[in-house]
């Protein structure tokens, strides 16, 4: 990160220079201020007062000296202590006064110094004079004191007495002396001198001479000292010490005044300087404030930079940490690829130390495993995209070649030029090993080491591609061992595993190159056989594999054998995707297993296509439900005997947009085994109830039955859902009836009966639909609490022509009657059916013979308009005789006989009956004969007797028809058929008359 700081730096330099100048100015100012202060403060009042007192003391002491001197001279004081002290004191004061105060101007100091010097000299001189005064005065005083005493002693001295002259002279001398002593004068001194010389002469030789000499000496002292003292005193007085002192005072005062003046000037200067300094300080503070502000700004700026730098440093340190602690090796090179730095992980992985590789080119790590093109491609990628990532084999310091996962990134400068490359790599030897291991685990079955499902899928894809390329076929064989589970159960899993391993080995040994055998798990294997050349080849291969498996096992005890079932599909005959191919093979394998094991089955593509269309249709059905394409039709149920509409069956129809109205058989079977059937069933119940309510609003109340699929019935939520539906439609709820297929109810009879019981609690009635088609058993019927049994229409439809059906229907009716169940016949298509049902004792029926299913909107009108056919009405009151039933069978037999013949001729087939010509030979003929032989009352009835003639005619006609057919005249044969049918109808008419006759004319009590 770069900072451009030079401009600010320059600014700071300037600021620093200014601050330095400012500080210098401040220091100078303060120095000047100090100087001025000191100059103004030098004029110390205390010092002034001291000095003036000194000068005053000096003057005072000087005066005291003079006073003391005079006192001593006048003998008022006889000691010199005070005088001496004063003199000493004055000398001290002079010395002290030489310390002239500094505050005085130099000129004044000089003057004072001079004056002091002179005064000092004067005082010293005065001290000298005083000293001499003291000496002279002492001597004078003694001599003056002694002189009168000595004079008196001398004058009064008698032995030896002085001469009178001498005495007189001495006397004169003494008087002169005493006078002189009192008032000394020059004349007196001269006079004394004259007397002294005279006296000296006179005393010479005198006995008193020593005394006279002594007196003279004292007198001389007096005269000398007196004169000296007078002179001294005069001189002392003449010393102008007092004037000098005044002058000194004057000088000092003058100097002091000057100094005061100067001090006041300095005070003014000081004040000015202080003002200047204050101004300067204000300016300085203002400037400092400005600097502070700019510094604050700069500080903020620097802080930001510092923070940025810190962050950058932190990031750098982080990068360094990453670099050094990275688990991956990192190589940093310059643009030419010369290594600049590597991290510790580099050394760990490659074995090369930092110093051994820095400055070298990473080419030294090349393993030689990659060709030049590889490296060229790598560099090309780096140049184009800025980075490359991939696995590469390199050589480490020990010469080992190892794989690494390498990322190379180019580092570019802002101009976009590559400045460095960073390579980050990890040793992926372990990862590679793990990869291999994982591959093994992921792609191979652990037990048999065969490819597993995953690898198989891969091989399958490859195989498909190869087949397409080679334009050859590939067989996908799904192989499942037969009876493997028992081996496991009997011998244990270890043996089972061994078997699997052995089988796997055998399969593998049977393969050619390019083929694959995989284990899907358990005992299921898949083989991919390439280059299958036709059906023959495939069959042989399959047989060979099966026989190989069927060889006795060596790994299992007891020499047991195992077989396999194999399903095969052939690509590209079955041009499906890999998963579908496998599924097809699996489906084929199931078929092989169903076909008896140790077998193979080849997948039928056409069949599969059909199934696939089923799937499409399933989805279409789902869509239809969503789209509301289903509608309900209602088929009436009627009471044949009463001639009333007694109910309806709701029947689903699919109003298909393209295919038109579709019956349930076209779509329900597709969804029967799916939950979709429940949704459809729910829709039917709901729609039915809605319709019933609509009818009810029209005043038309009718029980309606709804078909319930087995899956729907047995779903856990069925009853709850039904409750909910009934709750929504409470007014019609009690008229709902549910029809369940007999087969469905029997799938789980316990559950079915439980559900039925629960529904009956809700007031719902049940009907067993299509009864007779299942494994009907009395026990079951007893356990299923359904109120109604609906006879399957396949029986009803055939009762006319098929005695078996007739018997069954009759049995079912009998059964229902025994169990006190209501019975409804389905599939009533003709009046004849109705008649027969009435005769069989089944009053309720439905079918096209009554009405086709119709829309709910049409139903009410139809029901109101409907009336039963005349025949039924005529028969409705008849209580059929038991003997009628065999007649019904006979009737059917006959009708069947004629029918078969008719069909044979119609289809140009040989007539299946024998002895056509003999009327006694057919079944009906035999019945008729046996009846006649019984001599029962009805055999005597005309109706019975009327049977035989037409019957014979039937046979005669049959004979002729046969002859025509045999003669090859089919047309003639066919032409006779109407005649035949008329004869038959005559038979049946007679028979019917007979039935009616025996039932209506029966004797009482029968």
């Amino acid at each position, binding site marked *: 990160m770069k900072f451009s700081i030079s401009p600010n730096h320059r600014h700071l330099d300037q600021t620093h220079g200014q601050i330095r100048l400012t500080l210098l100015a401040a220091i100078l100012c303060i120095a000047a201020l100090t100087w001025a202060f000191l100059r103004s403060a030098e004029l110390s009042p205390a010092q002034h007062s001291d000095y003036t007192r000194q000068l005053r003391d000096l003057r005072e002491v000087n005066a005291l000296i003079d006073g003391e001197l005079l006192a001593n001279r006048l003998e008022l004081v006889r000691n010199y202590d005070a005088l001496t002290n004063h003199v000493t004191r004055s000398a001290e004061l002079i010395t002290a006064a030489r310390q002239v105060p500094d505050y005085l101007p130099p000129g004044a100091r000089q003057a004072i110094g001079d004056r002091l010097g002179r005064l000092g000299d004067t005082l010293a001189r005065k001290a000298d004079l005083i000293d001499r005064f003291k000496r002279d005065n*002492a001597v004078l005083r003694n001599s003056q004191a002694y002189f009168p005493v000595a004079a008196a002693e001398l004058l009064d001295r008698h032995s030896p007495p002085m001469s009178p002259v001498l005495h007189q002279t001495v006397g004169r001398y003494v008087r002169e002396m005493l006078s002189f002593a009192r008032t000394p004068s020059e004349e007196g001194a001269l006079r004394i001198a004259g007397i002294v010389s005279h006296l000296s002469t006179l005393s010479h030789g005198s006995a008193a001479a020593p005394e006279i000499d002594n007196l003279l000496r004292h007198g001389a*002292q007096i005269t000398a000292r007196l004169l000296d003292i007078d002179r001294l005193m005069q001189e002392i007085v003449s010393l102008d010490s007092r004037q000098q002192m005044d002058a000194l005072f004057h000088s000092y005062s003058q100097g002091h005044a000057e100094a005061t003046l100067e001090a006041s000037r300095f005070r003014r200067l000081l004040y000015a300087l202080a003002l200047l300094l204050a101004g300067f300080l204000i300016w300085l503070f203002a400037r400092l404030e400005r600097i502070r502000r700019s510094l604050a700004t700069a500080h903020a700026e620097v802080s930001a930079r510092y923070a940025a730098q810190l962050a950058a440093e932190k990031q750098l340190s982080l990068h360094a940490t990453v670099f050094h602690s990275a688990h991956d090796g990192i190589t940093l090179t310059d643009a030419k690829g010369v290594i600049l730095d590597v991290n510790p992980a580099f050394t760990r992985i490659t074995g090369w130390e930092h110093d051994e590789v820095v400055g070298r080119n990473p080419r030294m790590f090349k393993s030689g495993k990659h060709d030049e093109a590889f490296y060229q491609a790598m560099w090309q990628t780096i140049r184009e995209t800025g980075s490359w990532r991939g696995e590469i084999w390199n050589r480490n310091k020990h010469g080992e070649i190892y794989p690494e996962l390498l990322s190379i990134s180019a580092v570019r400068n802002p101009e976009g030029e590559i400045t460095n490359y960073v390579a980050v790599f990890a040793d992926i030897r372990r990862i590679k090993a793990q990869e291999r291991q994982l591959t093994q685990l992921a792609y191979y079955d652990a037990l048999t080491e065969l490819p597993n499902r995953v690898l198989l899928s891969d091989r399958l894809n490859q195989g498909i591609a190869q087949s397409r390329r080679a334009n050859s076929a590939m067989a996908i064989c799904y192989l499942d061992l037969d009876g493997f589970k028992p081996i496991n159960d009997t011998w244990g899993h270890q043996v089972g595993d061994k078997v699997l391993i052995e089988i796997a080995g055998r399969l593998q040994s049977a393969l050619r190159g390019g083929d694959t055998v995989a284990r899907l798990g358990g005992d299921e294997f898949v083989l991919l056989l390439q280059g299958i050349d036709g059906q023959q080849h495939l069959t042989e291969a399959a047989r060979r594999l099966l026989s190989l498996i069927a060889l006795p096992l060596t790994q299992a005890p007891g020499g047991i054998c195992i077989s396999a079932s194999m399903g095969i599909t052939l690509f590209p005959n079955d041009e499906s995707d890999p998963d579908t191919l496998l599924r097809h093979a699996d489906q084929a394998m199931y078929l092989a297993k169903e076909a008896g094991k140790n077998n193979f089955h080849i997948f039928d593509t056409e069949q599969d296509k059909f199934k696939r269309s089923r799937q499409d249709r399933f989805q279409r059905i789902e869509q239809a439900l969503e789209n509301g394409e289903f509608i309900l039709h209602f088929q009436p149920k009627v009471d044949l005997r009463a001639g009333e509409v007694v109910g309806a069956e709701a029947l689903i129809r699919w109003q298909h947009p393209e295919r038109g109205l579709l019956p349930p058989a076209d779509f329900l079977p597709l969804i029967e085994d799916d939950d979709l059937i429940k949704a459809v069933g729910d829709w039917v119940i709901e729609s039915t109830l809605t319709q019933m309510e609509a009818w009810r609003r029209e005043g038309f109340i009718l029980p309606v039955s709804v078909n319930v699929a087995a899956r729907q019935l047995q779903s856990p939520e069925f009853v709850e859902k039904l409750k909910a539906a009934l709750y929504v439609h409470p007014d019609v709820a009690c008229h709902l009836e549910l029809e369940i297929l007999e087969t469905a109810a029997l799938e789980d009879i316990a559950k079915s009966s439980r559900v039925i019981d629960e529904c009956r609690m809700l007031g719902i009635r049940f009907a067993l639909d299509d009864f007779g088609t299942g494994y009907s058993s009395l026990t079951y019927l007893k356990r299923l609490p359904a109120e109604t049994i609906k006879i399957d229409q396949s029986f009803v439809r055939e009762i006319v022509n098929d005695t078996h059906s007739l018997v069954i229907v009759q049995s079912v009716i009998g059964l229902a009657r025994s169990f006190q169940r209501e019975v409804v016949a389905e599939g009533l298509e003709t009046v004849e059916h109705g008649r027969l049902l009435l005769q069989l004792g089944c009053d309720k029926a439905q079918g096209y013979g009554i009405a086709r299913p119709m829309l709910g909107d049409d139903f009410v009108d139809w029901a109101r308009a409907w009336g039963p056919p005349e025949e039924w009405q005529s028969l409705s009151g008849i209580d059929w005789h038991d003997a009628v039933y065999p007649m019904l069978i006979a009737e059917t037999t006959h009708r069947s006989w004629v029918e078969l013949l008719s069909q044979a001729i119609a289809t140009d087939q040989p007539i299946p009956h024998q002895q056509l010509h003999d009327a006694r030979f057919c079944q009906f003929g035999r019945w008729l004969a046996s009846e006649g032989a019984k001599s029962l009352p009805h055999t005597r009835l005309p109706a019975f007797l009327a049977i035989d003639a037409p019957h014979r005619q039937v046979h005669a006609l049959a004979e002729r028809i046969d002859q025509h057919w045999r003669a090859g005249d089919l047309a003639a044969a066919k032409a006779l058929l109407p005649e035949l049918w008329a004869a038959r109808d005559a038979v049946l008419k007679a028979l019917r008359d007979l039935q009616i006759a025996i039932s209506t004319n029966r004797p009482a009590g029968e």
Partner: protein
Amino acid sequence: MDSDWGAVVAKLKGDAFYRDTFARLYPDGISGANIADAIAHYERTLLTPNSRFDRFLLGDKEALSALERSGYWRFLELGCASCHQGVGIGGNMFQRFGVMADYFAGRPPGKADLGRFSVTGREEDRHVFKVPSLRNVALTAPYFHDASAATLEEAVTIMARFQLGRELPAEDLQAITAFLRSLTGEWEGRPLE
């Protein structure tokens, strides 16, 4: 005391005690000026009050004997007190030795005999000496600058002869010397011996 400063300084420098003490008190150690200053300081401490004469002057008439009292009177009458006056009974002035007669006649002039002349160089100061204080004078024999008087009597006699021009009678001499002996005071509370 007939010594020059060089000899005095050399002598003191030979003594370790003086060397150390001077070194402590004066930055330049032993020198003539420092010796003089030290002596002056010493002398100012030499206060020996409470002599019998002092007590007498304070009113204790019995402090002096009759002889001493008469000695005192003679001392005043004869004129001794003209020079020996003041609190120190002398010590505050200079006086020529041989006022009434030439004391130095008939002897070769010694350097010490010059007196104050050797300081001032003035002829008038020849043979002028400081008048000593007579306190404790009885204890400071021998006397005079040349130590020529061995006894007090001798000194008093010479003083009377050359300074006063008198020959003292024996009784005066006896009285005066008795008086002078009464001037011995106490130093630090103890009588001086």
